[in-house]
């Protein structure tokens, strides 16, 4: 959602808020005021797994668990726990919360008692809950996520079939948004309080307040409806042969509007993150040194300030990728883009609970993997984290 609304964190100084960034800083900053007797600092304990006195970490030898393998193992363990929680949540939300999904279906379309019983047997709902949970668990690990009510096809084959268009859409949007957001963010910070800065920050705020699906509708209306410059939906026009050059052009044309929508909604977050991050660097002494060496402003910015500001930004960018997936649901719905988001929408309107469960698990897994990559990248990029 725009927000991300989803991973919707207000754009106010996201840099400072972020746990990955704030963590080492708080840990080090708050230490002097605490006596070692007053309990271990809670801050570093759960996340870094080393609940010892931080003072010792700051001064002398690196604490246990600085090796890459130990760090990797810890993060991998965290991701595995998150994944397990998603799987449990999936079972809880779809099998326990709704009571009886078949009763829900029966309420929405006429059915005989035999049909209800047959449906119940088909989905294994007549089994005890523990047996259902076991079936669900083994199903997930063998890639069997049940059968879609609406499509009459296995959920995993549907997801495999619809995954590629979503990857194409979100991937293209992510790359453009990252490049645009970071570039404009560093420019805005460098020319802080200039007209450019005010204009870009203002635009970001407005885009933050725009619901993704509404922006999509507006673009569809202007460029697809009124001007008729671009196709209004789908991924290819009928009759275009796959594999030809014309096919590529056709897909690209269909891609333009959805990508613009997603970029508009997310680049603002990257912009604000980059701006905040560079502002932190701008009072640093090494910039004075660089200027004293005789570098011009451009060189100072590009060679010294920006690389340092990029450190925290890169990982935040990865963490925000979860927001892209939420955006994909509404954007694909508006533009009838045949991807997982549209599949989710169809699962909602069914309601097709096995399909919704499938897309929920797959989307969540993708986000958890992205966050794991972000954690690993952060350590590679910022040597300071290796100590903390």
């Amino acid at each position, binding site marked *: *959602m725009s*927000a*991300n*609304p*989803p991973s*919707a*964190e*207000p754009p*106010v100084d996201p840099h400072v*808020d972020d*746990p990955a960034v*704030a963590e080492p800083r*708080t840990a080090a900053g*708050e230490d002097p*005021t*605490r006596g070692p007797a*007053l309990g271990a600092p*809670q*801050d570093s*304990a*759960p996340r870094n797994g080393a*609940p010892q006195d931080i003072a010792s970490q700051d001064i002398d030898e690196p604490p246990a668990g600085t090796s890459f393998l130990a760090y990797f193992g810890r993060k991998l363990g965290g991701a595995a*726990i*998150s994944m397990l*929680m*998603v799987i449990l949540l999936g079972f809880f*939300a*779809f099998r326990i*919360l*709704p009571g009886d999904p078949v009763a829900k279906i029966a309420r929405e379309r006429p059915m005989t008692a035999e049909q209800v019983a047959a449906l119940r047997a088909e989905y294994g709902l007549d089994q005890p809950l523990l047996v259902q949970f076991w079936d669900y668990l083994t199903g997930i690990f063998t890639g069997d996520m049940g059968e879609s009510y609406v499509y009459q096809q296995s959920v995993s084959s549907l997801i495999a079939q619809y995954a590629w268009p979503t990857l194409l859409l979100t991937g293209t949007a992510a790359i453009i948004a990252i490049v645009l957001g970071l570039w404009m963010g560093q420019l805005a910070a460098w020319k802080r309080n200039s007209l450019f800065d005010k204009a870009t920050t203002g635009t970001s*705020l*407005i885009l933050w*307040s*725009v*619901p*993704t*699906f*509404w922006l999509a*509708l*507006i673009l*569809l*209306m202007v460029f697809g*409806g*009124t001007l008729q410059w671009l196709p*209004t939906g789908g991924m290819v026009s009928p009759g275009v042969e796959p594999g030809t050059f014309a096919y590529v052009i056709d897909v690209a044309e269909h891609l333009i509007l959805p990508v613009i929508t997603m970029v508009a909604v997310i680049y603002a977050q990257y912009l604000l993150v980059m701006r905040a991050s560079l502002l932190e660097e701008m009072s640093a002494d090494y910039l004075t040194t660089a200027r004293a060496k005789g570098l011009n402003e451009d060189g100072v910015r590009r060679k010294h300030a920006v690389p340092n500001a990029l450190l925290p930004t890169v990982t935040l960018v990865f963490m925000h990728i*979860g927001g892209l*997936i*939420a955006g994909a*649901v*509404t954007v694909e719905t508006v533009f009838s883009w045949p991807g997982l988001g549209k599949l*989710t*929408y169809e699962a*909602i309107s069914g309601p097709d*609970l096995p399909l*919704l469960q499938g897309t*929920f698990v797959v*989307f*969540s897994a993708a*986000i*958890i993997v992205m966050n794991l990559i972000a954690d690993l990248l952060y350590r590679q990029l910022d040597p300071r984290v290796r100590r903390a």
Partner: protein
Amino acid sequence: MSTVLSPRAVAFNRRKAAAGRAWKMFLQDPAGVFGAVVLVIVSLIAILAPVIADRSMLDVTQQLDQPRYAPPSAEHLLGTDNYGRELWVRMVWGARVSLLVGLAATAMSMIIGTIMGMAAGHFTGFLGGLIMRIIDFFLVLPSLLLAIVLSSVLDRGVWTIVLAIGITSWAGTARVVRAQTLSAESRLYIERARVLGAGHWHIIVKHLFPAVLPLVMANTTLTVGTAIIAESTLAFLGLGDTTQQSWGTILKNAMDVSAATSGYWWYILTPGVAIVIVVLAFTLVGRAFESIANPTLRSR
């Protein structure tokens, strides 16, 4: 000064003075004041909806002699929809649902977020670690996805939407509250209270809660905007209450009749502009509050 004030009165006076200072600082922020004025106007419209337009004007069976898809004109202020209903009437009534859901979901999200954040910051060891894990999990998972799941499996209704948004949007607040709790925990007055024998409950209620409150307030206004967008998105995906129509529902109806490609621009433009204005107003007010509550941001 010869009068001796009770400790309670001293505290009260101090808080009153602080509130007065905050109010003055807020008045100096033109964007924040503008946002506040917009919010007052929109709230008044929502509260006075039954006075402004009778509910029967929403009933599709009463609109048979109305033109369908009439563009905005002197007669039909904001145009009409596919049933001939006046769009402005739907907007006025929709404001009630949008604002109510936004505020209720935010209240829920703030309560969960504050409790979890203070607990994560206050408790050490296994309990604190466990709470932190839960916060992290909800932080990572996109809230819209989980909200979609919750509102699909539960019975449709306004309160389901409130629940779905409230349960999925608290993690950001919890993180901010936890950071603030940690910095408060390291203060000497907390140590003193602990030495004097204060229990967890006393420290949390009497010392930590007042310390995190200003930040929570600032976060609240920012979250309302997010919650309103989340509500409109869920309604747009068809998960809203069909009897209580919000601005998101209007956009859903607009998409269902392909308003975008059929040239019914008012049908799409009006609800969206309203959402943007209200969310922007909440964001401006929230930013103004935040710069009061968090002095380090003031220099930015």
